[in-house]
């Protein structure tokens, strides 16, 4: 378990990084926090010619308030999101999702951008980005693209990111301050990838749901946006919602598979329950408040 030989570069600016990526013609891999990449290198499942360490690029770090939301630099460590009082206030779902990423130790090094860009289908952060309608900002020497998270993922570990592109920011729009946060996952051990999980948010104005974002993780080849359920929820008042019925609609937007940890049938059965329970609990808490 030693990596194959590679060149190592540590650019200090996004321009420099993009130039290296362009020059490498697909032979470069970006190193962020390394919590997934380092094991893959050691297993020789990843054998890049050039490893581009972006941890020295200051502009890729940090959490910023921007107009209408928050912009998180891809090199922001996961632990920083958990500790951010601004995010705790404005995007509690994101904070909750990050709390479930890996372990305390891996969150000290693991980054937001690394997890978003990797596209592990059972991971929390890509699904959170899809549900919360985040935009992924990517740059290359060819220019800048802003890609809605829902269009970013193509398959397991596959994204629309071109080989010369670097994720430079993830923008999460604000949800109304009284939005309902939804998050739940089922994992065998704390820190494991979820057997099934869901994340979402619902904005409410004048008693009606005006905006809904829902996504599954561990339920298909990518984070799975529950679009049909989102549509169904719009315009509903909380006491009109039948959580079981919504969950049964939401599950139609999944495509889980068998793996040694759980079967597809298991994921469908338990996923529906988990979704309904999460929705039910969130509504009852709001109604009690």
């Amino acid at each position, binding site marked *: *378990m*030693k*990596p194959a030989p590679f060149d190592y570069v540590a650019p200090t600016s996004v321009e420099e990084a993009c130039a290296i990526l362009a020059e490498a013609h697909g032979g470069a891999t970006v190193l962020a926090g390394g919590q997934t990449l380092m094991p893959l290198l050691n297993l020789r499942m990843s054998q890049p010619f050039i490893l581009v360490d972006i941890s020295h690029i200051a502009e890729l770090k940090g959490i910023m308030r921007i107009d209408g939301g928050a912009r998180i630099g891809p090199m922001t460590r996961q632990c920083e999101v958990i500790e951010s009082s601004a995010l705790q206030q404005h995007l509690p779902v994101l904070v909750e999702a990050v709390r479930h990423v890996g372990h305390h130790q891996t969150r000290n090094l693991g980054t937001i951008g690394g997890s978003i860009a990797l596209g592990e289908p059972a991971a929390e952060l890509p699904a959170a980005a899809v549900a919360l309608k985040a935009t992924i900002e990517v740059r290359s020497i060819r220019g800048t693209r802003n890609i809605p998270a829902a269009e970013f993922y193509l398959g397991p570990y596959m994204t629309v990111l071109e080989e010369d592109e670097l994720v430079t920011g993830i923008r999460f729009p604000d949800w109304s301050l009284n939005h309902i946060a939804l998050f739940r996952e089922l994992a065998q051990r704390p820190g494991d990838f979820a057997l099934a999980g869901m994340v979402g948010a619902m904005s409410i104005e004048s008693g009606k749901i005006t905006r809904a974002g829902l996504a599954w993780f561990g339920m298909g080849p990518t984070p799975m946006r529950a679009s049909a359920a989102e549509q169904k929820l719009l315009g509903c008042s909380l006491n009109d919602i039948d959580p079981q019925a919504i969950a049964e609609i939401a599950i139609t937007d999944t495509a889980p598979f068998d793996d*040694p*940890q759980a079967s597809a049938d298991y994921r469908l059965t338990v996923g529906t329950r988990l979704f309904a329970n999460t929705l039910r609990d969130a509504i009852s808490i709001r109604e009690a408040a």
Partner: protein
Amino acid sequence: MSAPGNPPAQRTSATTDSEQQNGATKAAGITAGRYIGQRTPRKEDPRLLTGRGQFVDDISLPGMLHIAFARSPIARGAIVSINIEVARDVPGVHAIYTQEDLASFKVDMISFFLVSPDIKTTPLADGRVAYVGEPVAMVIADNRYIAEDAASLVEVEYAEEDPVVSIGDARTGPIVHPGTEDNIASQMGEEEIEEELAAALKSAPHLITHKVVHQRISQSPMETRGVVVTREGAQELTLYITCQSPHLVARWVSLALGLPQTAIRVIAKDVGGGFGLKNHPWKEETAVILAALLFDRPLKWIEDRYENLTASCQAREQEMVLQVAFDNDGRLLASHGDYSVNNGAFPQLSESNIAVHMFLWAAHKMPAYGFLTRGWYSNTPGYAAYRGPWGMETLIRETALDVAARRIGIDPIEIRRRNLLRLEDQPTESCMQVQLEDITPAECLDKLLANFDVAEFRTEQEAQRKEKRYLGLGIATYIEPTGGAGSIPTMTGELAQVRIEPTGKVTATMSTHSQGHGTATTMAQIFADRLGVSYEDVTVFEGDSSRGGFSPGAAGSRQGVIAGGAAIMAADLLAARVKQLAAHVMDVTPELITMDDGMLRVEGNAEKSRSLAEIANIAYGEPDRLPAGFESGLEAQYRYQPPPMTFSSAANACIVEVDAGTGFVKILRWISSEDCGTAINPSVVEGQISGGLAQAIGMVLMEKVGFDERGNPTAATYKDYHLPAISDIPDFEFLHASTPSQSVGGMRGVGEGGAIIGVPTLVNAIADALVPFGEVPVELPLTPTKLLSVIEGRDLGEKPAGEQPVIAASQPVRVEVTPAVITTDESTAARIDGDWNMALSTPMGAQEMTGHFETSGEALSGYLSSPEGQMAFTGTVTGNKLQFDLRVVKPMKITLKYNLEVNGDRIAGKCKMGIMGSMKVSGQRAP
């Protein structure tokens, strides 16, 4: 929700400690002391917890090179060609070896029992590969990075063949090892249930047929395998190797490589867990040793986790069908077991686990038991031990008893009480002729139930079920043979060498070895106690074959029992010498002297007190002051040979909640009530039990080595091979019974028990929780998918064991049918008379012998001769069939019934060895 039942039994309470001391007081030849029976802090911990341990990878020698292996990517096939030229050109590569390069060494890859393998086993693949991960070539390079680069460039062309992966494949599939008749690695017992037993089973009021499928397990030591080999000077070969006994490794290497043992030194200061994987070197370690001899530079190989999970020997993977007959009161009438274990391609021992059958019903009033037990070769990594290798007996018995209790309508505790032996029933002998004198599973169960209110739990369980919450209680009991010595060449006594230094401090060298067992602590407690010195003044050395003497180290829950006895005996010999010398110096009789706090005191005469250091100084430095004939110095040694076997007993209870919506299991409470005799250090005992129980939880809920249909491993990292995390392990509660054993000191082994009894305890709890939904098929691990399938009453995708066809004992094994040819034109004498070279397949390997037959009509006479001697017999001849009996007394009194058949120059048949069942005999006419 608070844990149901009454408040937790007090962990580590004063009560249990004082009971412990009472137990110790009663123990043969031992008194409660300042240290024995105390929770003395471990001597090893400050070093280990501050990163100052010395493991193999901590060893770095001048000029040392590194090794990586090129491994087979296919499970079965022939090697067409190996091209190392590209790899050899990688800068920093010193050499690349294949089996061809190692073939000049005649290596005998012997088993733990020192028996040659049944099938040709070589360090590197020899012409064929038989499992994914089998080492094919080895690269020696400046560092591991370069070695791995070059290993990936070794080009091997294979002619791939369809592999044999599962036990089912082995029964019906192609032959794993060319030249063998079938895939049976080892077989004992009867292929058809004997008539009398079959009748007893059939006529019983209740007959339970219970199947258990146990997954394959990776032993997963925290420290993977590894070795550093160096040749020191012209002769001595020094190995730093992570192992379970440096002495056994030295002996193994000496025998396997044909080297004098004096030329081998094995050092293993600290070991990060063994669990059965590290009993002796196997393919890779042997290849590294040979490479070091060939290349003559120090070499290092550290197995990485990928190799450890996919190419190391593995364990378990068993299937068993147990039939148990009961009368209407739930009393046992008869039983039959059909057991199979996957041996992989190159097992460390061709194994069919006879111990499973020996101990299955030993603690119970079971009138009759029969079995068929088989090991199967497959194209998977080889079989090796894992903590409690015979644990299937407890798993299948305890789960079958619960199934029976539900079926018959008896309480699971009551069905155990009706059938378990109690102390007053002993001494007795089991139906498998196991001698039982002082087992206490029933008494452990009593103690457990005295500390746990079952009725209260049942009330709560009932109430919770109405709320759709499913609590379950699992109970299990077991016995375990520990401290075995004398039955197998490698299972010996233990040696203690102890000296009082001229400084008055105590130094001991032991034959023990710790992979976390804390022997440097427990042995020091004994010496401090028996020599009346402070615990801090005792140092115990172990972990080096040049120190102490032979023992197999940590294998079979033995060190506390045997080495503990050795330490007591050696200390007492030394104490007697100290007293003799002190009495001479003080001019009193030895009986008046007491040893305490490093002082020698005379009863009623305080001014005569001397320190141990003063007496030691005299012993070493002032020969004139020694009594006549007193050997100078203060040293003693004792090799303790214990009774052949010492039994430990236990009863455990566990409470779980199963989430009916997800199939997730939450362990709410776990109580261990064990009897390990004298507990030298209750914290060390509880540490051993806790570790074993944690492994049991892993086996029941999540661990699994899996393969796809091409024999590719499906869990290559700990992302996919799930070990229990700390969050999966409850706080265990402990009760200690402490019935002294017959061995010196009264200890009983406790190393493996948790891993054995924990499995059925948890399975039973889960099954009890899910009673409203039906029986839970015992196919481990019990994943959420499997449990939810039971709860929902539909198959969610993982086929439960119950739906697979049950393999009945009477189902014939794959047999090459050769019609019996009886030539009539030849006289009986011409066909049979003369000498035959024959081999008897036994669990200890093939036993070679020569048979001499003389016929006279239907009368047969002759003898069997082997290196052990010659035994005459008489018998009968019918056609080409020979029948004769031999009565032997060693290793036990038994009549061997031979049934052989002659066909041309070949002879084959069976030898029935009483309760041990039948073994295969084959051979040919002596030239």
